[in-house]
């Protein structure tokens, strides 16, 4: 329990620090105090000055942060100027789309990944199947998520489908190794010799043996999906949190960006802590594997 609460405290602190870091980045990035409308030649000096003055309130970072956290304590996430809407409303409006995409991506990715991996473990002679699925997985893994998004887009597929294509090979690769190992264990041999049905063996022996690793994979695949969602949504233009984050970054929308960074940070750290919980250990995405 103590360990759990310490871990929670660490996570919350981390998320807050990430939020503050995002705020500092925005505050000191060029273009924070400008408005695109300034280039409108119809604007006279008076309205131009008003427009400029309006952006100046971003300048006092400490005051903004205090204001933000004070609001946060009351459940107020601030106001997004680039979208002229409260951040809370925006997140509530977009989250279902992203969750739906993530769910489609994860479920589809797992069905395909695991579905391809089980026969490889089950049938020793399935080398052709193994080679074909590994080859296909290797090919997809060699392409950036953004390019897959282009292809899916021209084919008329939605961003959920892109996530399936991105996630399935990664899940397949890891699950394949785990399942081959699990199927190779001695008690599976014994069960087969006793004439137990394959389905039962898969359920009771193989999957339960591999459960910790597969659970860890579930957590890390979730964090991969979150990471892939931003470029995929930005390219496919689906109205989710990923596109919102991209818009917020280009518009220097401080409250929105802070909230989204913290949200992504929370989801990522949660997934990471889960995948590293005692008993659950899986390989982790490599360095810079943000694509």
């Amino acid at each position, binding site marked *: 329990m103590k360990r759990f609460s310490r871990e929670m405290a660490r996570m919350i*602190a*981390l*998320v807050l620090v990430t939020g503050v870091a995002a705020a500092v980045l925005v505050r000191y990035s060029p273009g924070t105090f400008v408005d695109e409308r300034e280039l409108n030649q119809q604007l006279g000096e008076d309205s131009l000055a008003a427009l400029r003055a309006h952006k100046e309130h971003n300048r006092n970072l400490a005051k903004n942060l205090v204001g933000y956290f004070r609001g946060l304590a009351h459940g107020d996430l601030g106001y997004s100027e680039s979208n002229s809407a409260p951040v809370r409303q925006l997140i509530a409006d977009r989250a279902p789309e992203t969750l739906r995409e993530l769910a489609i991506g994860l479920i589809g990715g797992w069905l395909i990944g695991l579905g391809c991996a089980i026969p490889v473990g089950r049938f020793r002679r399935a080398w052709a199947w193994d080679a074909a699925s590994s080859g296909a997985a290797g090919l997809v893994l060699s392409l950036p998520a953004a390019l897959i998004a282009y292809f899916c887009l021209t084919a008329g597929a939605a961003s959920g489908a892109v996530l399936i294509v991105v996630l399935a090979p990664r899940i397949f690769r890891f699950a394949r190794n785990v399942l081959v190992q699990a199927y190779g264990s001695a008690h599976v041999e014994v069960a087969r010799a006793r004439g137990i049905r394959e389905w039962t063996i898969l359920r009771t022996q193989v999957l339960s043996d591999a459960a910790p690793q597969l659970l860890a994979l579930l957590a890390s695949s979730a964090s991969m999906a979150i990471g892939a969602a931003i470029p995929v949504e930005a390219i496919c233009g689906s109205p989710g949190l990923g596109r919102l984050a*991209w818009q917020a970054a280009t518009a220097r929308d401080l409250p929105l960006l802070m909230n989204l960074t913290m949200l992504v940070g929370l989801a990522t*750290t949660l997934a990471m802590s889960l995948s590293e919980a005692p008993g659950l250990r899986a*390989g982790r995405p490599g*360095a810079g*594997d*943000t694509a």
Partner: protein
Amino acid sequence: MKAARIGAILLLALVAAGALMPERWAAGRYDQQFRELPDAPPSAQFPLGTDAVGRDRLSRLLYGTRVSLLLAPAAALLSCLAAGLLGGIAGYAGGFTDRAIVSAADFFLSVPWLLLLLIVRACLPLDVSPAASVAITFALLGLMGWAAPARIVRAAVASLMDSEFVLMARARGYSSWRVLLRQLLPNVTPVLLAQFWIAVPAYILTETTLGMLGLGVAEPLPSWGGLLRELEGVSPLDQPYLLAPAILLAAVVGSLQLILPREDYPV
């Protein structure tokens, strides 16, 4: 498996050779504009056709390959060195240092790196040449990418610290330096090497994503990401030659993955 690996190495060597001598294969320099022939389909002179302002696509592809093949390993090296150092210290020291470094790694993993890149690019002085700005981008990626491998190095070092031979070495009264150099370093090197091989294709892919989001290499310098932007909204079936950078990218990244020892595959 071995044959596939040898094939992969040969392919990489071929690509590298092509990229190092683009003028041997292509009609013009990557920035030379044949303005009478914009958007030309493939021909004997331009095997992959020309782009919107009449530049030879093959030449641009080969130069872009050079950019990716030179800079991705450099960034990978940078991140692995940082990861080895910080992960090693965390695993070796344990306690507060360990927790601090792990927290820092988690922080780096959740920082909005796209925003950071956007900002760094906007802050660069304007007279920085395109080559220098792309080098800076990669350096930044390398510096930011230390966190994930560092966690793995840390775990490896921490488990080594508990291993019998390290305990024995310590019991014999060997100095910390000797333990570090004789026991730890040789055992961690393969982990770092594996991380390096994982990181190279990851950085190549990151560059292409950046390029496709418009944050990549500045004109007129070509890069894979920039070249792939031509595919945006186009049906590849109509102009299959536009797929050339995607195919080359898949071949190179795929070969790098084949070279990687199988058991070290990342998820």
